[in-house]
Structures are given as structure tokens and as C-alpha cells.
């Protein structure tokens, strides 16, 4: 591909971290259960809410790590 030199400039290995959050939330067998519950909230719900926060942290890390490249 003619554009590969530009894509290299923009591509970063840090972007692979995105895959972690994608797999974590797009594979329901990981979290489709009730136990362990947290303050009465079934696992299904608090796991996904927790991943909102973890995802935000990952995105922030990737953003800082790849800034001004």
C-alpha cells in the first residue's frame, strides 16, 4: 500500500491495549452471571460498569503514551 509510510507514523503498539477492553465487554460469557454480587448488584451489571472506568483509564494511558508522536 502506498500509504504505509504515513500509517506507520500514526500507528502505535499502544493501540493494542484497546483490544483488551473490546474483548472484555464484547464476550458475554465472561460476565453473564449473578455471583459474585457487589453490594447486592449482580456481577453482570457491576462488571460492565467497572469496565467503563477501566476503559477510560486505558484510553487515557493510550492518549498520553501516543501524544505528540
Amino acid at each position, binding site marked *: *500500500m*502506498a*500509504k504505509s509510510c*504515513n*500509517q506507520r*507514523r*500514526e500507528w502505535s503498539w499502544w*493501540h493494542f491495549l*484497546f483490544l483488551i*477492553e*473490546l474483548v472484555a*465487554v*464484547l*464476550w*458475554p*460469557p465472561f460476565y*453473564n*452471571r*449473578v455471583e459474585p*454480587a457487589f*453490594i*447486592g*448488584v*449482580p456481577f*453482570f*451489571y457491576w462488571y*460492565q*460498569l467497572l*469496565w*467503563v*472506568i477501566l*476503559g*477510560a*483509564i486505558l*484510553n*487515557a494511558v*493510550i*492518549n498520553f503514551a501516543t*501524544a505528540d508522536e
Partner: protein
Amino acid sequence: MSDIHWDALTIFALLFSTIAFLGFAAAHWHRGDLDLLHEWGLGGRRFGSVITWFLLGGDIYTAYTFIAVPALAFGAGAIAFFAIPFTIVACPILFLTLPRLWHVCHKHHYITAGDFVRGRFGNRWLALAVAVTGIVATMPYMALQLAGLQIVISALGLSGTGLTADLPLIIAFVILAAFTYTSGLRAPASIAVVKDILIYLTAFAAVIVIPIELGGFSKIFAAIPSPKLLLAAPGPAGSGSYSAYATLALGSALAIYLYPHSFTGILSASSARAIRRNAALLPAFSFMLGLLALLGFFAIAAGVAGMPEYAAGFKQFGNNFAVPALFLHSFPSWFTGIAFAAIGIGALVPAAIMSIAAANLYTRNIYREFINKTPSDAQEARMAKQVSLIVKFGALAFIIFVPTQYAVYLQLLGGIWIIQILPAVVLGAYTSWFNGWALLIGWAAGIVAGTAMAIAVNLTPAYPLHLAGYVFPGYTAFYTVILNIALVVILTPLFNALGRQRIALNEIVSSDFHA
């Protein structure tokens, strides 16, 4: 419905007047010449990280979302929570593709996705397809925002017969139309700040106060019937609701930035860095949306559906009345006013942006391309302002005269249609290899197949795909965009062999995608 809730209504009206004032005053904010389309329709591309965060938050997490997602949880249970993975997955997509598109649009003064496709593939019919898809998909979305507004107005106790029943909605709408006309994108951007603060206040109050009233989360979840509590585990003959859940999340995430209103919000950012930062900031809204989805369960546990005072509301609005009924039941009247104002203002922000985005598309990719090829700057801006009015009143007429369920169906179809511009817009951000005519055929095939599949399953989102004796229920938009991409990849070499020109028409060079 029963009596008017005066405390709530007063607070609601006060907050509403405040944002109306703010909407008109916004014309003077970051002062620019509003007779230029990019000033009126993109706020002069001057919004930094924080305003972009408020704007996208007000734009993507709409009033209808705040009513419909809990309503889905209330009615269907766990499947409604696909909204959480959806908004999580949307962030990497935002981070990876939108800064590229922002750079190229900034450099070439593109205002719409249609402009980008026109420049990239040199095919004005493809740009027309992108523009028409955007407008058609946005209209029912906008009508649903009004439906959200209609629900809270009615829940305040304002009801009547005939035209008087719709009068408050019409007044709210005329105000919206007026400040959008005068201030452009600056109006929803400034109002979004107020709206988002009110929504946060409401969400956190609801998640703290209501579980205490109901005796804790354990009691709430104990009240949820077990089929609603988790996704149904798949049987031996297929992937069951697991694949439906995952493809709904992924497909919605792929589609969200293709909607004209989100694209407009992105292009109005002052830098690509502001967009990247928002990939880490927007989850704050996702978290709140997750909390709000739980309100559907709170409503089940509180038993509002069985209370006689809310029977009329449920009869008129169905499950969408669950959240308003829960607020009326759980909050003191004055706070209900704040909560309803949050939803009502939350309807105006996206409705304004949607009408601006649709107007930009019409002006750039239909009017300027096919009707008046050399408009003056002022003519172009005037056209967009007028079209934004037409679009808004079209949506208002729709919600007053047509059953809301039709808007729900059209919005569902709109999601399937809008994703079909993904190959041209998102993949087009990475490669110009595709042939414009191949993209057009892929788009058409995706729309026809998607519409047929949606009708075959009675306009529900998931289609049961049969493969080798197994059944994979999945989001129709997701399946059909794969078909679309496959067709484009097969047809591109074919069209190129037929001698259709491409590279000569690509006015974008790869360095345009960077700072």
C-alpha cells in the same frame, strides 16, 4: 393525566427560560460571522476539549436515550445493558478514526461527511447517497427527541385535548427553532453545559436516593424476574442472545459517529487532540448511562406500573413512562422539576444539532452540488438556516400527527441505513482504493437487504442468521454492513477494469490526515 404538579412545573419553566436566554446569547460567544456556513453550522471549529465533551455528551447521550434505555431494561431486562459495551467500544473508534477525518476536513474546509466522500472518491452521486442517508436517518431520531420532551411535559400534568395538548411542545419547539436559526451550533453547545450538569445531578440523586427508599440494591434485584436478570444462555443450536448482545453493541458503536449530528459535533472541535482526549473523557457519560439504565429496574422494584395514578401515562406512552413515573413517585416535587427539565433540555440539544447537521448536508451535498453550484457564502448560510427550520418543523409535525411507534421503527431502520456509509467514510479515511461506484452499489445492497431483514423480523433489531445448521441472532446493521463491505471489495477491481477513473479525482493526499 391527573393534576398539574405546580412546584415541578415552575422549576421546569424557570430552567427552560434560562436555557432559551442562553441559546440566543450564544450568538455572541466566540464571536464569528454567522453568515458563513462553517461559523453557523460548525461554531467556527473553535470548541476545545471541554466544550467538545459537553457537546458530544449532549449529542450522543440524548433525552430519548435516557428514557428509552431504562424503558428497555424495564420491559426486556438485561439486554438493554448492551448500551454499556456500546459506549465503551465507541471510544477506541473515536480515538482511531475521527482525528484523521477531522484533519482532512479541516484542511479542505469540509463541513459534512458528504463533502469528504466527494473529495475522496470524486463521485457526487456517492456524496448524495451519504447526504440523503444522513438526513433520512436523522429525521426519526429528532422526532424521538421530541417524543421524549412530550413525555415529560405530559408527566408534569399538562394535558388537554386536541391542539392544546400539544401547545407546550409547540412553544418549546418554536423557541428551539428560533435560537438555532440565530446562533447556529453555538446555541446547543452552550446549552449542553447546563443540560449535562442537570443530567448528572439527576442520575446521581436517583441512584443514591431511590435504592435507599427501596431498601437497597439486594432488594431491588430480588424484585427482578429471573428471565430479565441475565441474558438467556445460548442453547446447543446457536449463539442465542450472546451474539445479539455483542453485535448490537459493536454495530451501534460503528454507526454512532456516522450520524450527521455526531459528525458535526466532532468537526466543530478545535483540534484533533481535543477529539482524542474525549475518548478518555466520554466514558463519564457511559457510566451515567449505565446508572440510568438501572432506573428501569428501580421502576420494576418500586412497582410504579401497578399504581393507579400512573396508569394513564403507561397507557399513553408504554414502558417509556417508567422513568417519569419513577421520578414522580420517588422525588419531592421540586426535584422532579429539575429531573424533567434535564430530560426536556436534553431533548433540545441533540434536536438542535441534528437539524443543523441535516441542514449542512442538504446545503453542501444537494443544494450546492445539484441546484446552485456557485452560491455566495451568505446564500449558502441562509439556505442552511432555512433548511434547519424545515427539518425541525417536519419532525414536530411527525410527532404530533403520526403515532410515536412509527418514529421508533424508522429510527431502528435509520440505524441500519446509516451504517451503510461506513465503507465510504470510515474505511475511506484509511484508503482511497475503493471505487466510488462499487461503494454506491454496496451501500444500496446494504440498505435493501437490511430493510428486508428488519421487516422479516417485524422491525426488531436482531435477525436470526442461519449458518450450517446453527442460528446466530445478531444486529441487522452489523450483518448488512459486512455484506456491503464484501460487495465493495469484490466490485472495486471490476469497475476499475471497466476503466472508471478514480485516482485522478481524489483531491486528498495522505498527508492531509495528519497535523
